[in-house]
């Protein structure tokens, strides 16, 4: 079982490498990979596809700035965030807005694993931990 999982992980990593073109995930390549896995279906296919999905999702998250906000966020602000993040990370990053009233006020921007917190909820959480 452990050996099968390890094999699936290795295959998923190889397939993922094939799916990246110029540092970004290519939709065409992903379609090609899916077709290949479907054609060469094995008992491991589900494990491979799950591992592959995780790798692609992590990579895609690095190219997206998810802007959570309480209240309104103007389109120019989103563009400014996308530009600033693209400059910071050295790759094209698209900003997408998601309302989140739990933030109370302010915004939270997530790019991959990095979170930029500028919300009242975040400050209150930090305060409660420091007390």
């Amino acid at each position: 079982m452990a050996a099968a999982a390890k094999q699936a992980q290795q295959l998923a990593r190889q397939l993922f490498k094939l799916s990246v073109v110029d540092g970004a995930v290519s939709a065409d390549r992903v379609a090609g990979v899916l077709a290949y896995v479907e054609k060469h279906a094995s008992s491991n296919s589900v494990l491979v596809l799950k591992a592959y999905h995780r790798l692609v999702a992590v990579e895609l998250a690095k190219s997206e700035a998810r802007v959570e906000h309480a209240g309104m966020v103007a389109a120019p602000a989103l563009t400014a965030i996308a530009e600033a993040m693209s400059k910071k990370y050295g790759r094209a990053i698209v900003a997408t807005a998601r309302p989140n009233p739990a933030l109370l006020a302010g915004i939270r921007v997530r790019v991959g694993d990095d979170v930029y917190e500028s919300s009242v909820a975040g400050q209150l959480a930090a305060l409660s931990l420091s007390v």
Partner: protein
Amino acid sequence: MSTVLDQIEQQIAKLSTKAVKKNTGNIRTIADGVAKIDGLSDVMYNEMVAFPGGAIGIALNLEESEVGCVILGDVSKLKEGDEVQTTGKLLSVPVGKALLGRVVDALGNPVDGKGPIDSKETYPVERIAPGIMARKSVNQPLFTGIMAIDSMIPIGRGQRELIIGDRGTGKTTIAIDTIINQAKINKVGIAGGDAKFRPVYSIYVAIGQKSSNIVRTVAALEAVGALEFTIIVAATAADNPANQYIAPYSGAAIGEWFMENGMDALIVFDDLSKHAVAYRQISLILKRPSGREAYPGDVFYLHSRLLERAARLDGKGSLTALPIIETLAGDVSAYIPTNVISITDGQIFLETDLFNQGIRPAVSVGLSVSRVGSSAQIKATKQVGGKLKGELAQFRELAAFAQFGSDLDAKTKGQLDRGARIVELFKQPAFSPSPIELQVSVLFAMQKGFFDPIDAKKVVAAAADMKNFFTTRKDALLTEIRTKAALDKDIEAKLQAACEEWKSGYTA
């Protein structure tokens, strides 16, 4: 004027709304105090990681697709998918004199109900041990108060001396006696007002022990007034393995503060067998490859990097370590015992047979050794006890042969009688360490044959009476021995006279 204020206000406004960057991940699995986390792409090795609800973790396994963390604290409220954050800090514990007299957990939080600890400084739990140039050789004594040890297996400040033996052979008692003795010496030294006097502060690290045992230890230290010079770091059997794994390193960090600030400290790790077991548990859950007895490959480094932190520093203080190892059926050649024996500067081996025969402390003279302590032993002890180890070893050998025959020549009989008396003389009750000057006096009496006319079975009572005689009636002589630390002709004459005075008044 108002423009300047506006500028400052704008700056404050800018700062207060500045975004805080965090690197995050999500719990993928959690079991037995170990979490596997997706994300945390910026995490450093051994970095502190913040879990929801205030729990803290340490990143121990940095893999391609996940991070393995041990969690210190309450794991019951954590679940799959919870967000975890890096902190950018290494795990640190509060240090300083404010901790003296307190019982803390592996993270330095008080657990004795005496309120918060007012500590100004923190030290990282994991630190690189002092290098070669920073060290100084061990040449100052650290008295345990146990005659068998101070005379035959002396310990110096900055030494690592292992206490090893089966369960129930008195390993912890030796460590506690040593702590009590330091407190007694500290009190005498501080009261004496000697500017050169260097007190020894003690740290007792309890790893995987029953809470009731720790309570008993605290009570024993408190009863003799030793707790005020002692810090207790407790990771009980009820704590998760991560806390048990980190506790000795926390204790070492607390001890290092004393060492770095020109003071002397003693640290007891009770015990490293349970520490190795806790680390094995964590490593197996982290799926690290296992080796002999299922311990991970770095179990030697686990203890070597800990014990190397005990040292005597040039121009600073010292940290003396007394690690404890529990053996199974007296097997010192097992994996963990041999590892720790090779790391330390000697060992005090306690035997079950001796313990059951009523010889307590049950120190096996043949298997115990102090590799660096002899240079730290005071001259007075060397003068009266220099040949004791050899004499005792000879006695054990002769005693074994004497079992087969009844006809013994006078010389052999004399050696056996003397050996039996030395064995009796070294018997000492728990939690009653003897000052070194008293040990020297009693050993002098033994050397000069004052115990020879006394029946071997009555030597313990006679020695107790002699100690009482010296303490109550020869205080000036004891002070002279303590301050001079050597026996000159004048002191020897006084000792001889005192022993004769005792002999004339003693009736067995």
